[in-house]
């Protein structure tokens, strides 16, 4: 089945994007990546730790040439901060993609729609491939698409919360109206959540905490891979509708009474 996902001209076979945060150690991270089949991984950009500047960095620990690196602007509270971080990330020389996050609040880590739209316009203008992280707002999703974003990335539930798809009706609307891939990002807790996202027609899922903090990250990464594949096939297969009444599966005539 040739069902490739294309983002900014890049063909991807895997619809599982993985974050690199919160792993207990690099061995668990590498094992999870291997099991997942993921081709897109997110990274954050931070000041180098000057207390030990020759220490190995993330890029020394993973074979980054195997992946499409998606730097995020996590930690940025305003459009200006996000634009500055995106430029620094691009200057690392590995990617002009950016997962745009403009998040002013620490408790729920919900994205600021106004700052996100402003930063997205600036970054698209400056040649970035922009993947904006948003709440489940269909109108905002359309505005970002019109602004030239390569995807939209609505959250399932708050980052790291593992609550799964709490607002799938809004996500259904986003998917129905989108002309760019929709990546469900944040809050996925189990493969069933990811499968549901894919059954609704999402193009991919971005998962971090659910894998990194699972008791067995590599096994959970494999489970997520399978859940996403199952959900995608179910979407393409065309499910039956839900009905309020029964509809017998066996013939009604010829019963021996």
């Amino acid at each position, binding site marked *: 089945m040739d069902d490739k996902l294309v983002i900014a001209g890049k063909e991807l076979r895997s619809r599982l994007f993985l*974050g*690199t*945060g*919160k*792993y207990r150690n690099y061995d668990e*991270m590498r094992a999870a990546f291997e099991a997942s089949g993921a081709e897109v991984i*997110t*990274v*954050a*950009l*931070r*000041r*180098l730790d*000057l207390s030990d*500047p*020759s220490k190995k*960095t*993330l*890029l*020394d620990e993973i074979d980054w040439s195997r992946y499409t*690196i998606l*730097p*995020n602007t*996590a930690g940025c509270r305003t459009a200006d901060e996000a634009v500055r971080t995106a*430029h*620094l*990330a691009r*200057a*690392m*020389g*590995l990617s002009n993609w950016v997962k745009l996050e403009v998040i002013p609040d620490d408790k729920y880590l919900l994205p600021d729609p106004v700052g996100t739209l402003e930063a997205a316009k600036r970054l698209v203008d400056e040649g970035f491939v922009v993947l904006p992280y948003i709440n489940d707002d269909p109108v905002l999703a359309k505005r970002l698409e019109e602004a030239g974003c390569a995807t939209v990335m609505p959250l399932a539930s708050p*980052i*790291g919360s593992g609550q799964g798809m709490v607002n799938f009706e809004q996500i259904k609307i986003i998917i129905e109206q989108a002309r760019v891939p929709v990546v469900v990002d*944040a809050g996925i807790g189990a493969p069933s959540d990811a499968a549901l996202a894919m059954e609704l027609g999402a193009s991919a899922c*971005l998962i*971090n*905490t659910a894998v990194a903090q699972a008791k067995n990250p590599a096994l959970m990464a494999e489970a997520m891979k399978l859940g996403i594949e199952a959900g995608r096939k179910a979407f393409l297969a065309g499910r039956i509708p839900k009905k309020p009444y029964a509809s017998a599966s066996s013939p009604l005539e010829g019963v021996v009474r």
Partner: protein
Amino acid sequence: MERWVRMAVQITLNGRTEAVEDGTTVLRLLESKGINPARVAVELNRRILRREEYDDTPLSPGDALEVVTFVGGG
């Protein structure tokens, strides 16, 4: 024979004050700290430097340098 001594000047590096020799290049500073230039991006006074510029860019008093890298994140 006279020996010229370079002045130590104060710059800010990743938000902390640091003393460097006046005129030290960005590359020399990175090397002196064991930082691999290929693993970082550098911003000097809010302008991002290209890697080719590290060797040609001397530091002056009051300069603000940010040296960043990729870390794990979601």
